[in-house]
C-alpha cells in the first residue's frame, strides 16, 4: 500500500479553465478541483487568463497571433512558478503545441516576448503545459491514485473516448510516441474497477473537432452517430472522456443524432457521458450531486443533456 503522505510531492498547478468548461460544463471544473484537492494537489487560479486561443480558429488564420496569446497564458502560470494544467484537449493542443514550437524556434520566441513586453509580460518556456490526464497518469501515477479509490465498480462497462489533441501530434506529446493505441485513460478508468471495453473505431474523432460542429452540424453528428452505434454494439454503459468539447459533442450530440438520424439508428441513444474526474470523484467517495451528476428535472437547456441516472443506478449498490 502506498503511503499517501510520504509519497506526496509538491503538486501545484495553475488551473487553466478554457471556454467550454465554464460555459457549458462547470461541473467538470468542480470535479477537477475536488479530485485534485483530495489527491493533495494544489490548483492556483490564473488571473487574467484568456481564450487559449482555439487551435482551429486562431492558428488556422494567423499563427503569430496564436503564438502570442498562448504564450501570454503560459506566462501567467510562469509568474506563479508552476506548470499550467488544463482539462481540455483543445486548450492542451494549443498551449502544448505553442510551448513546444517556441522551445524549438528562438526567433519566434524573441518576437513573442517583444510583443508581450508591451503588456508587461515575459514568456520563458520553463514550465511545460500539462493536461489533467498527464498530472494524474505521469506526475502522480496510477498506483498513487489507486490509494484513494474507495468504491470499486463492478459490471460497469465503459466506452473510453480520448479525443485527438491529447495524443497528437505524437512528438509534441508526453506519451512516449504512443498515439495509435494509447492506454493511459483506460488504465485510470480501470482503477475504479470498471471495465474499459474495446469497441470499433475507438480512436475516431467525436465529430466536433476542426470547427466541423460549428460549420456543418449534420456532418459532426454523422461522426458521432457512428461512434455511438459502435459503443452501443460493444455494450457500453457509459462514455468516459477527458475533453469538454468531446464531452459536449457526445452529450448534446446524442440529442442531435437522435433527431437527425432517428430513421436509421433504431432506438434513440441514452448513454450517459461522464468526464474522467467525475468518475474518479464518485469512486473516491464524493457526493455525485456535487460532481454535477444529478440534475434538477426542472432545468431545461442546461447540461448534462443525456441523463446520468442510469450510471448512478448501476453503481448505487456499490456506493452504499
Amino acid at each position, binding site marked *: 500500500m502506498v503511503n499517501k503522505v510520504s509519497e506526496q510531492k509538491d503538486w501545484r498547478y495553475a488551473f487553466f479553465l478554457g471556454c467550454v468548461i465554464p460555459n457549458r460544463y462547470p461541473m467538470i471544473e468542480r470535479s477537477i478541483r475536488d479530485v485534485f484537492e483530495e489527491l493533495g494537489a494544489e490548483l492556483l487560479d490564473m488571473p487574467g487568463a484568456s481564450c487559449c486561443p482555439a487551435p482551429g480558429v486562431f492558428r488556422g488564420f494567423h499563427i503569430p497571433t496564436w503564438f502570442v496569446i498562448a504564450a501570454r497564458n503560459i506566462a501567467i502560470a510562469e509568474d506563479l512558478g508552476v506548470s499550467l494544467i488544463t482539462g481540455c484537449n483543445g486548450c492542451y493542443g494549443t498551449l502544448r503545441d505553442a510551448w513546444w514550437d517556441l522551445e524549438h524556434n528562438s526567433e519566434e520566441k524573441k518576437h513573442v516576448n517583444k510583443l508581450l513586453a508591451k503588456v508587461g509580460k515575459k514568456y520563458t518556456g520553463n514550465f511545460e503545459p500539462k493536461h489533467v490526464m498527464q498530472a494524474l497518469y505521469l506526475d502522480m501515477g496510477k498506483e498513487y491514485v489507486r490509494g484513494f479509490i474507495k468504491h470499486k465498480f463492478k459490471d460497469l462497462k465503459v466506452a473510453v473516448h480520448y479525443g485527438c489533441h491529447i495524443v497528437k501530434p*505524437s*512528438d509534441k506529446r508526453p506519451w512516449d*510516441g504512443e498515439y*495509435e*493505441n494509447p492506454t493511459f485513460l483506460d488504465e485510470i478508468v480501470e482503477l475504479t474497477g470498471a471495465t474499459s471495453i474495446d469497441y*470499433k*473505431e475507438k*480512436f475516431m474523432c467525436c465529430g466536433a473537432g476542426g470547427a466541423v460542429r460549428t460549420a456543418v452540424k449534420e456532418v459532426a453528428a454523422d461522426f458521432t452517430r457512428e461512434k455511438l452505434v459502435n459503443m452501443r454494439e460493444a455494450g457500453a454503459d457509459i462514455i468516459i472522456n477527458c475533453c469538454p468539447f468531446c464531452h459536449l459533442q457526445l452529450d448534446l450530440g446524442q440529442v442531435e443524432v437522435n433527431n437527425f438520424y432517428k430513421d436509421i439508428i433504431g432506438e434513440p441513444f441514452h448513454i450517459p457521458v461522464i468526464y474522467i474526474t467525475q468518475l474518479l470523484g464518485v469512486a473516491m467517495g464524493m457526493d455525485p450531486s456535487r460532481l454535477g451528476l444529478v440534475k434538477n428535472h426542472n432545468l431545461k437547456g442546461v447540461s448534462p443533456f443525456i441523463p446520468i441516472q442510469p450510471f448512478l443506478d448501476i453503481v448505487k449498490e456499490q456506493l452504499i
Partner: protein
Amino acid sequence: MTESEKKIKVTRKTRPKIGVYVCHCGINIAGVVDVYALKDYALTLPDVVLAREYKFMCSDNGQNLIKEDIEAGLINRVVVAACSPRMHEPTFRLVCKEAGLNQFLFEQANIREHATWVNMNDTEGAYQIAQDHIRMAVAKARTLLPLEVQKVSVEPSCLIIGGGIAGMNSAIDLAKEGYKVYLVERTPTIGGHMAQLDKTFPTMDCSACIITPRMVDVAREKNIELLTYSEVVDVAGYVGNFEVTIMKKPHYVDQEACTGCGACVEPCPVSVGNEFELGLAPRKAIYIPFPQAVPGEYTIDMESCIQCGICARPDVCEPDAIRYDDKPEYLKVKVGTIIIATGWDPYDPTPLKQYGYGRYPNVITAFQMERLLSSYGPVLGKPVRPSDLKAPHSIAFLQCVGSRYFREGGNKYCSRVCCMYATKQARQYKEKHPESEVYIFYIDIRAFGRGYEEFYESASENYGINYIRGRIGEVWEDKDHNIVIRAEDTLIQTPIELTVDLFILSIGLEAVADADKISSLLSVQRSEDGFFMEAHPKLRPVDTLTDGIFIAGVAQGPKDIPDTVAQAKGAASSAAALMAQGEVEIEPYYAVVLDHLCSGCRTCQSLCPFGAIDFDEFKKIAVVNSALCKGCGTCVSACPSGAMVQNHFTNIQLDSIINIAVKQPTVKNGQ
C-alpha cells in the same frame, strides 16, 4: 623513368617548400567561398611558395598541376584544400608518389564537408573556417616527415559470416578460385531466409529447388570449412592477417556419429515453436530446422530439452550419438579477408497497433504467408487463416509496414522487395483459389527490376488482383474474426470500409538485431538505417572502411535475390583481388620508441589494447611491433618520458596545428 630514379630527397633539415592547391569542387566549394581569395590567403602563410586553384583537383588535369610543380622542383610538400581525406587522400598521395615525392609529405584540408557544405548559407563564416583549415594544414605540412609504407603478407583464406544465399555464393566463388573459406553460420543449417521462401519473383521458380542444390554444393566443396551452429566471438589482427576465434555451439548430438535418421524425433516429448516455420508449426527439442537442412545432423535445443533421456536410449539412437554433456568448442583460424553476409531480420509489426498484429489471429505477416504458401510448409501450400483453419475467400495485403515510415517505431527506407513479394503471393493465392478476392493496399508500386513491371502488370491484368492506392488507417476484428479495414482509396478520393478473411502485413527488412555486436567485433561502421556501411555508395559498394573486410547481401541494405547474389560475387571478387596480390601495404602510422628516452617503466605495455608492445630484456626498453600496432596513440599519451612517438601524428605536428589554430582564432560577429 622508374620511380626510384626520380625520388626527391627530403629530410628533417630540408627547407619546406609548400604548394597549396585550392579545389573548386565544381560549385561545392567555389559556389560558397571565394577560392581565389583563399589561394591568395595561402600565399601569405609561412613556407608556402606557390598556391593554385582549379575546378577539380582530383581530375587528371588537376593532378598534373601538382605533379608538374613537384617534378619542376618548385615544391617538396603538398597541401590540397578540397574534400574529406576519406574521399581523395589516396588519390593525392599517389600523385606525390608518382612525381617522386614521399607520399606522406601530403596534407589535405577538408574545406568542403567542414566548411562549405555545413555553412552553405553563411559564406563569410564558411570562408573563415576554410582559412582556418588551410592554415592548420600548412602548419602540419611544415613538420611532416617522410615515412615508408610497410608490406605485410596476406593469408589466402577468407572468413564468411552468414550462410544465407549471399554467404554461400561468396564462399563457392572463393573456394573455386582456390582460397580456403571458413563459412560460419549461427543456426544449425545453411540456406538462410531464402530457404524459407516458397517461390521467387518474377520467374516463379521454386526457391527451395534453386537453393538446396546450392547448399549441397557448399557442403561438398573441399575448400569450404562449414561451421554451422557457430558464432564468431573474437577478431584480432589486421588486413591480411586476421585472427578469428569461432565458438562452435554444443549440438548435444555427436555430429560425426549422427546419421540423420530422425528416429529420435518421434519419441521426444517436448514440442516448441519452429523458428523456421515462424511459429506456425511445432518442432521437437531434438530437431533439424527443415528436411533439406545442410548439414543434416540433429541438434538438441537445450533451452527446451528436459533431459528425459529417451533419445539417448540405445533402441532410439542406434549410433549412440546423444551427448548431454557436450561443451562449446573454440576454434582459432587465421584469415586474410572477411566477408560479412549476416542478412536481415523481419520487421516486427507489433508496435503498429493500428494493424492489429499480435492482437487479432487473422492478421499475419507476409513472411508467415510465405510459409503458408510453401509446399513443404506447415499446411503443405494450402493457406488457411489461423482462427478457423479455413481457406480465406478474401485477403488483403498492406504494403510498406514499418518501411517508408517517418515516425517512431518504423524504418524510413524502402525495403525494396515487398511490392514484388506481395504481388507474387497474391498471384500464387489466385492460382490456388481463382474465385478468391485479393487486394493490395499500396503507396506506390515499385517494380524496378528486370521483368518486374511486366509481372505487376500481369497480376492486375490477368489475375484480377485489386490494387488500391491508399494506406490503411486502422483495422478492426468483427465477431467472426474477420478483419474490417478502414482506408482511403486515394485515386478516387473515397473512404472505404472492407471486410476480409485474412489480412497480411507486407513487412520490411531490418538490420539483424545484434548488428551492433558484429559492428564492434569487426570495427565496421553502420549507416543510419542500421545496415553495415559500404566504403563508397557508388564506387566501393562491397568494401567497408576497414581494410580486408567486405559486405555482401542484405547486410548492406535491403535487396532482392539477384542483387544479393551479384553483390556476394562482387565481395568474393574484391576479397580475391586482395588475396591474389599476396601482400598488402599498410600505413606507417604505428608508434615508435625513442630508445634513448625510454626508461623501461613498461607503462605502455600494460595499456596497449593490441598487445603490440614487447619489452627488450637486454636493453630494458619497450619495442613496438609495427604490424600489430593500430596507431591508437594510447602509449604516446601515457609515456611519462615522452619516449613514444606516433608516426604522422607526432607531438610536434599536433602542437603546430593546435598552436596555429589557437593563436589566430576565427572571430565572427564577436561570437
